[in-house]
């Protein structure tokens, strides 16, 4: 009895928690709304509610950002600092784009609109928990809350073998990654005796030696597990298959949001909690970044499927992003946050065009499906062109500014050779990015397929209208993201200022 009397209820700062509460409440409302009958409910109301949830959560996050930092929440389980808030805003934007891209996807009908959007919102809430985690337990629960809905979403187009295969592959590989992270976290806890990130940072060098083998093994296993999630080579093999098989809106979401979440936790765990060990993990992660940049770019060269090509390109981009983590400086943190934002708009523009063109093309997402797109519908060809040039790092696009910032951070953090690798990687990447651009503008319109025409796959959604105006929301996402890619490339300073604020979130680096 005496023990029960001692228990103090924790102070719960509902203002700081409000974005998460909005997400969870919204997910439940969407789930219940999905039970209502009627095509209007399924096609309009449910996605609208999901979008409203994300907008409310985003507005609350902005409000928290405006009023300044909040203290760590609920006995330092979560930190709603600028790093969390900025990453959350990226998740919400990616979520909104995914909702728009999903409107005509048959995967929604297969899974049920309520369930589909609930899983999407749950995954986003897991990402917010993960990015905000100030505690190893919260971190792991957030990782699972992110992953489990995604396994289901990948397999949600149940009529397609590829989608089921993708879901199963992601489940198996993702579980191995999660288990590896858990093992690593357990060893870090075993070495330091703490689960709070702040106390771990304090314990390293005091209660436990910096070179403690248990601690180092824990760091290595955690890094490997997170590398699975971020598709960093050599843990990337699942990426092309899963990205190709999953419904394309989910592929876009995974490519952007999951990667952002994985890098948010990389930044917080390595640059904040384990910063004392930077001498040990820095070179190891730098080697991974080098391998990732080379393997990703070389792997993309031979791809004919646009989804696989973007998957390999995503692997390469993960290598660039890792360079910002490796240096462990404030500049690296800022550069990574900046690049994650640019990565979002460029990839969303590319995926929106891929979705629009695979819905009307009998060739699916093969590169020949965009042949002659420049003449056929320039409104789709221009966004994809801008996205490809941006991902390659052309000047006057967001990708150029992002890479510039990352290289600056790498050189500043005594990793100049990594900066050179980024440049070399970008040069290799031109081969495949420009191949897509050339296919759009220079190849003649693809002749109709000889032999039996591929049946319009259920993933193609509605009827095969050959007019981009038939799917205005997809085109809108492509155009907005492409416009942002150019805008950030020409006027980077507003985003720079935000990135500088993010840089202040982790003290002591």
């Amino acid at each position, binding site marked *: 009895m005496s*023990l029960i009397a001692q228990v103090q209820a*924790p102070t719960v700062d509902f203002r700081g928690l409000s974005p998460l509460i909005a997400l969870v409440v919204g997910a439940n409302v969407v789930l219940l709304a999905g039970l209502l009958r009627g095509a209007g409910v399924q096609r309009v109301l449910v996605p609208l509610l999901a979008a409203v949830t994300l907008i409310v959560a985003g507005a609350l996050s902005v409000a928290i950002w405006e009023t300044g930092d909040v203290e760590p*929440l609920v006995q330092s*389980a*979560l930190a709603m600092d600028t790093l969390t808030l900025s990453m959350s805003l990226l998740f919400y934007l990616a979520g909104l784009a995914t909702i728009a891209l999903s409107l005509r996807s048959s995967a929604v009908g297969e899974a049920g609109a309520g*369930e589909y959007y609930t899983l999407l919102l749950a995954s986003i809430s*897991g990402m917010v928990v993960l990015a905000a985690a100030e505690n190893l337990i919260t971190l792991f*629960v957030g990782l699972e809350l992110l992953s*489990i809905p995604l396994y289901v979403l990948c397999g949600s187009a149940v009529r397609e073998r590829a989608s089921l295969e993708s879901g199963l592959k992601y489940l198996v590989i993702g579980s191995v990654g999660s288990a590896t992270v858990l093992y690593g976290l357990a060893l870090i806890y075993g070495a330091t005796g703490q689960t709070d990130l702040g106390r771990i940072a304090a314990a390293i060098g005091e209660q436990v030696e910096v070179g403690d*083998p248990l601690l180092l093994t824990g760091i290595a296993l955690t890094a490997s597990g997170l590398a699975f999630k971020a598709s960093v080579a050599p843990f990337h093999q699942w990426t092309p298959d899963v990205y190709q098989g999953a419904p394309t809106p989910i592929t876009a979401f995974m490519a952007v949001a999951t990667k952002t979440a994985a890098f948010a936790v990389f930044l917080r765990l390595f640059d904040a909690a384990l910063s004392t060990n930077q001498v040990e993990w820095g070179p190891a992660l730098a080697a991974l970044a080098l391998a990732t940049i080379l393997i990703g770019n070389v792997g993309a060269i031979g791809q004919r499927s646009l989804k696989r090509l973007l998957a390999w390109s995503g692997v390469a981009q993960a290598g660039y992003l890792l360079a910002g983590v490796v240096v462990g400086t404030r500049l690296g943190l800022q550069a990574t946050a900046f690049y994650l934002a640019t990565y979002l708009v460029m990839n969303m523009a590319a995926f929106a065009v891929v979705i629009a063109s695979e819905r009307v093309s009998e060739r699916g997402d093969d590169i020949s499906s965009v042949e002659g797109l420049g003449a056929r519908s320039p409104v789709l060809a221009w966004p994809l062109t801008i996205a490809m040039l941006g991902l390659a790092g052309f000047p006057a696009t967001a990708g150029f500014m992002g890479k510039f910032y990352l290289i600056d951070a790498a050189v500043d953090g005594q990793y100049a050779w990594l900066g050179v690798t980024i440049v070399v990687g970008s040069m290799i990447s031109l081969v495949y990015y420009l191949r897509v651009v050339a296919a759009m503008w220079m190849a003649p319109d693809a002749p109709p397929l000889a032999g039996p025409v591929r049946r319009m796959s259920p993933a193609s959604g509605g009827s095969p209208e050959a007019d981009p105006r038939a799917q205005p929301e997809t085109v809108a996402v492509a155009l907005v993201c492409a416009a942002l890619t150019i805008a950030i490339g020409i006027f980077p300073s507003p985003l720079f200022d935000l990135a500088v604020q993010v840089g202040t979130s982790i003290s002591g680096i």
Partner: protein
Amino acid sequence: MLFEQVLFFVAAAGAIAGALGVVMIQNPFYSVLALVGHLVALALLFLLLRAEFLAAAQLVVYAGAVMVLYVFVVAYIGGADEPLSPEGGAIARLGPLFALALLLELTIAVGGSELAALESAPGTAAPGFGSPAQIGALLLSKFLIPFEAASFLLLVAAVGAVVLARRRRGLEEAGAEGATQVAREVREPAEPATVAGASGEAR
């Protein structure tokens, strides 16, 4: 003290043997039983760490409820008839090598800590440590957020299971369509008298 040490090594050996059994036994049914053995050995280890509640929960929830479910599933889909045979291939042959490398690394790491804990006196656990009351208090204070997030995770997992497993009218229609098509194909060449039986069977 000696009894505890003996118990530790018995439980540790049992846990490792059980884990090896899960992956090495070809028959899925015995594999599940090996997993039960592994979990019971783990519960013993928890008991040695003064975590009585955790040990009991491990036995009741995992070794009891969850494993019974596993046994049911294996019995239901008749896995025992088809022994799991690993597929050959270059990567499959490399797998054990990587596992061995990881084992070496972990052994070095654990050995590097000089197993200081083995020599030291048992840690002083506060009275009531690991009791249900203390675990409950932690779940409602320090780990409130992970606890709530985990409950939301369970809801989401249930939704996901429904999405993947629920009946789909379309799929059944496709199946029925296929059946009628077969029936039609049978009908055309065949004599009318045999058709009724054939199409009835196909259906």
